[in-house]
């Protein structure tokens, strides 16, 4: 089964492979989440959502729902 960015636990890293949602992917790519980029899970908000990841040199927060659209290799 394919792994998405939402499956990472804090400290784990993964490589972005693809996106499942065109609209969200445009925004993510503008923010530096591109295929081939390393993404590291940092921490989740107290209620488990949204989460904070480290990508292209900065901290990005996004909802779990959106993290699920990022497919990792």
């Amino acid at each position: 089964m394919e792994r998405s960015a939402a499956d990472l636990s804090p400290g784990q890293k993964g490589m972005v492979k693809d996106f499942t949602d065109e609209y969200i992917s445009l925004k993510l790519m503008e923010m530096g989440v591109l295929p081939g980029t390393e993404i590291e899970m940092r921490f989740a908000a107290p209620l488990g959502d949204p989460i904070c990841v480290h990508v292209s040199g900065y901290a990005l927060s996004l909802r779990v729902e959106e993290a699920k659209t990022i497919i990792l290799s």
Partner: protein
Amino acid sequence: MSRAINVALVGNPNAGKTSVFNLLTGMNQKVGNFPGVTMDKVSGVYNHNGQQVNVLDLPGTYSIYPRSMDERVVFDFLSDEHAPDFPDKIIVVADASNLERNLLLFSQIKDLGQPTILVLTMLDIANKQSINIDLTALETEFNTTVVTINGRKGEGLNELKDAILSDCHSEYKPFYDVNELSPEIIPVIKEKFDLANDYISYQYAQQTYSKTFLSNEDKEFIAEAKVKYNFCDRQFQTTETVERYKTIRSKLEQVITRSQKMGEVKNRTSKLDAILTHKVYGYLIFLSVLFVMFQAIFEWANPFMDWIDFGFGQLSALASSYLPAGVLTNLIAEGIIPGLGGVVIFIPQIAILFCFISILEESGYMARVVFLTDKIMRKFGLNGKSIVPLISGVACAIPAIMATRNIESWKDRIITIFVTPFMSCSARLPVYAILIALVIPETKVLGIFNLQGLTLMLLYLLGFFGAIFSALILQKILKVKERSYFIMELPVYRWPKWKNVWLTIFAKSRTFVFEAGKIILAISIILWVLASYGPGEKMENAEAAITETKSHLEPGSDEFEQAVSSYKLENSYAGILGKTVEPIIKPLGYDWKIGIALITSFAAREVFVGTIATIYSVGGDDGDESTIKEKLAAEKDPETGEPMYDFALGLSLMIFYAFAMQCMSTLAVVYRETKSIKWPMLQLFYMSGLAYISALVAYQLLK
């Protein structure tokens, strides 16, 4: 002196753009409107070497493709080559510690064809993270002028000013050639709209519908061309973004060297985040911050507000004693000066609120608050970003509603605008204060809590829950397919720059005074006229009427004068209005006098206390609440002889004021922000209806 040159400032959010803008222009800033767009533009002016430079600060954005109201302005402004204020030069502000992502926007801006300067900020942070940037290589690789600036100390400012005036700019060559994507459509658009630049033409096709200066025929023309040449916007945008990043990455390899050790800034941020977004402490700290902020708004602002109140009272007295007696003097002393005072008195609260908000934003904590609350807010059809307007709403709904512009989703934004006026703004405070003092005993609850304070807190909670539950209802009703999403940068923690904080306070207070001031002033003049004139001759014959009906009063005594002014008020246009609405508000326990206050305070709630003061003939001592309080306490119900202002009436009034949409300025701002009369009207009827029903239930249950 040569013609003034126009410069536009663009950059990612958190890139330090505001600091650069403040360094360049200082206090010479003004807020205007973009022609055709309901959007504030912040611009400023400075002189350098005898040349005047106009600087326009554009909203922060990650790319030229807009997602929020804020961002839409950026491309709209930069793409109209024929507009009179089209910038001669564009300055892109980029965060040196995060160059790759910042350069995406730079590369797009550069392709628009205007001379562009790249300003690097936060070099100190980059160095601490062991990122070394070869500036000469950066200039050659990206074919641009690079200036570094220290936003805190202002180093590099003169170099930037020189670069802005300098004529030597590298020759234009596209960073990414969009002709690879769609070679056919670009010449067609170029010719039709007389454009010189390929990328601007290509963006006409990409952003046809968000552009405000295109006519409908123009839009149709482009839409037809898009179909004809098989223009697939999203796919092209994806390719463009990926290609741009590829080029940026390969070029940056020549520019950046990185040593492996972990930067200390990131360490500090990680440590702070471990506490500030912790499962337990995270919310506790957030609540404490809110608590301190509320305390500050209400406690620290008090002495200043008293001084302003006193000052305007004196001014009004001065005006009536020194200006020649007459209608104009009355209008100035009783209408205009108190009206202006009603605006100015809120400056301390607005200033303190924006001081807090600006510190929270500058330090990077506000982004964490948004992060912490997103999940909770989402349940109510709001967004983490809605928390900022909701908190600001505690001071005043007007700046709060303007703060919704960075919410990307239209639905989230509309719901936020709709419910923000429920938050108990500072204008409700004087109303609550006097009613609580009147009907709530000053006893202790559980030994520590003051019952009056507790009531005030409950009223604030009532407003908050009013907002939350209305959002819930609206979420169910609004059927919009648009996706709500939440993708946001969490910036590193930094010490706020005090100059930025001061300029924010200054700018926001000024906007408030001028935006709200105009309307409140107009209303107070109308109100004065309504209360000073009446139909027929009853107003002129007031003294005779009182001499006849209340013969025990000695003409010229205080009691006599009070009776005369009460009589005049009862027979004025305002009094007639009050009598007209009396049957409607009777079930809530209100009489015609409260009716007048309800009508007058529809423009702005704080007018309630002033009107009540006038009605009960307290005279000039508007600010002296104890006298108003005594008068109200002495007021008897004409039917029962019991005190008029009992617990039931007081509570009913408080609940009414907690919910009712009594603020013309807010309605005006909602109209301006939504560009539709529908939303302010819905708001007015929904909130007033809710206020009426809740007040009715409260009164009928308690009486």
